[in-house]
């Protein structure tokens, strides 16, 4: 009986943890003042993945793809209609016009690589 309660309790706790970790919380954004901002695509993640940038300034992101799998081959800014092909081992700059404050997601084609550009 105790085991059943413990297992069910643990299961519910894991569900709560998933909801909290993946949907309700997020890592601290890294403030970037240097232009361009270098973002490495490797092992299924963009590093850094959460970037904070000041408003009213042009944004230059320099992507460096280290992951040879096709998943990392393209970066797409869904709301901005901007995308770039990333070649393995080559830097690719993405130039964005100054954006109003808000959060702009950038993803790979399959939405497995994900990052957020936060304009403040």
């Amino acid at each position: 009986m105790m085991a059943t309660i413990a297992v069910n309790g643990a299961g519910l706790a894991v569900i709560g943890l998933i909801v909290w970790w993946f949907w309700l919380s997020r890592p601290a954004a890294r403030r970037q003042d240097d232009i361009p901002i270098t973002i490495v695509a490797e092992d299924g993640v963009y590093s850094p993945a959460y970037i904070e940038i000041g408003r009213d300034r042009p944004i230059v992101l320099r992507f460096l793809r280290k992951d040879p799998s096709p998943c990392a081959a393209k970066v797409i800014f869904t709301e901005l209609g901007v995308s770039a092909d990333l070649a393995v081992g080559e830097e690719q700059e993405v130039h964005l016009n100054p954006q109003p404050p808000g959060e702009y997601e950038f993803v790979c084609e399959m939405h497995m690589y994900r990052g957020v550009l936060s304009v403040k």
Partner: protein
Amino acid sequence: MMAEQQHIRLSISGMSCAGCVATVEGALRAVPGVTEASVNFAEHTAEVFGLAPSQTLLAAVKAAGYEAAELKGSEDQAVKEAAEMAHYRRLLRKAAVAAIVGIPLFAAGLMGILPSMATATGRGFWLAAGVATALVMAYAGGHFFVGAWKALKIHNANMDTLIAVGTGSAWVYSMTVALFPERVPSLAQHAYFEAAAVIIALINLGQALEMRARGRTSEAIRRLIGLQPKTARIVRDGQERDVPIAEVGLDQTLRVRPGERLPVDGLVIEGRSNVDESMLSGEALPVEKNVGDEVVGGTINVSGSFLYQAKRIGKDTVLAQIIEMVRKAQSAKPAIGRLADRVAAVFVPSVMIVAVITFLLWYNFGPQPVVSFAIVTTMTVLIIACPCALGLATPISIMVGVGKAAEYGILIRNGDALQQAGKLTAVVLDKTGTVTEGQPAVTHMITVNDWDEHDMLRIAASVETGSEHPLAAAVVEAARKRQLETAVCDAFKAVAGRGVQAVVAGKTVLFGNRSWMEDNHVPLGDLPAQAEVLAREAQTPMYLAVDGKSAGLIAVADPVKADSTPAIQRLHALGLKVIMISGDHRVIAEAVARQVGADEVIAEVLPMDKADKVAALQARGEVVAMVGDGINDAPALAQADVGYAIGTGTDVAIESADVTLMRGSLHGVADAIAISRASVRNIKQNLFGAFIYNVLGIPVAAGALYPLFGVLLNPMIAGAAMAMSSVTVVSNANRLRWFKVRENG
């Protein structure tokens, strides 16, 4: 974090002295972020170091009064392909290593020859199998675990998370059973090492196959990039030498010999030739090029050798812009794909929650041994779920569809244009230049009052020499062909929608339509009746009067393009209503419409009112495609649900419409609509497949069939299904490559 210094090379045009060097260097150094800038006057290049983006540098040079372009190395496709091939082989090697451990274990299990964990030997065997599996997981599946961990740290969950948690939990459970069998009920003493190894083998294999299939989807871009030669022959100080294309600067003189491809865009400065532009425009016949004519990089010099001056290089060339546009469009997603994106964004954590619920349901309500059932079903749920297929469904079809269109000289600007094309009900065709050649010619002349044709034409051409009206150009051209010398005209006056008035050799000449003659009280006799007959044959009659008396009629017609009628038949076959719009007189417009088989005519429309007419059709409930030239018809193209700009040759109005047709033929519109519809159909198939796969697969993996049929999905089958789901989506998209737009061709 400090950003890295970068090195940018620019080609500078317009520098004539050493003073210019100082000006350009000063302008570049003034750009924030530039640490060093030096200009090489001999080569007309600038080397810039620092953090400033190239666009800012180009703008600074321009502001200083010069032209500049970035010099970039061409993409080395061979190196890229070699790297892709190496990764492909690595994935296959990993799949093979995992299979070497997983398959024998799996086969022995099926044959029932695996030792029991109750004996010491059996335990030893299982512990060894566990270690071997761990090694396989580290070598062949290590990247899944690293990816999952890195994603977890940034609060993200991806494909790697599902694979790592699924195979990791299988291994941990199996190792626990092997280490402490006495603590696990005998029924539950089962290890799943083979499942973990086989799943990793299958997923690596699936990724390798997907990579191969995806390579084929970008064939169109590769073919376009392949049009760009790697070297150019520059002429400097009378010497010719071959240089890499990246070193060609603005205004440099280039030599092209017969059979060679042109490296960049420019103007012919010496010699003449015929150039095959078919790869860019789809036009079959070579185009004659003389001094002063524009030539475009990527086209082939067919006959003579010529010199030309580079005017657009690097990413400014027409070919580079086409490649860029195709690339952009290939990344664009139509609305239809956005639902899948929203689902994909929350998919992995949702599957993890479903997996935990599955575990709890089996643990609480499942048969004995509950832990084994719970572990297997949880693992199967995690493994079968495939967010990749969902995420890939739309972009991969768009990529192939847009590439296919590019092969036909059709440049699609965005994914929504592709989707809207499927809903079109009506196509509005601008008459002049779209249905017709757009180059009117004199077809008939009728003289009265003792005038002869030559005199009448000479007077009319004298009046029209300075006019920019297309009909005027036809009259001037007819006079030129007959080698008639025009006279000087004075007191020229043009009245829009009426005609012109001028004084030639002391006589007052009126040239224009019937209203213009009536306004000036010119007696016309039976000319209007003859004009009516000509108008019904789609000819535009223009009256000439000298000193208040009629001299006759000059009729001008714009011939219908040879393929307009069959192309309109194809539009009808696609279920579309064809409406022709024209600024011409109703009688003429109707005559052309009859000739080509258009369903409706909107005539006598001023250019600025075309957009309103399109809006009126939309208000009537039509979903409208507008086909016209990219410059004059821009407002109507923008108003339409899908705007198709018809270009001629390489004169591509890339920015002006949703879809740009590089050829002048109306067949391009039918081709574009057919490809769009096929692409949208393909996307729907992919989305349906990916959704159904996950919607059915996940419950089956969770054991939904068990209460009714007593069957559970083997986690290895789930692994195979997952590996193949992405491959299936990519392969289905690849089918579009074989799509033929015309039944006969």
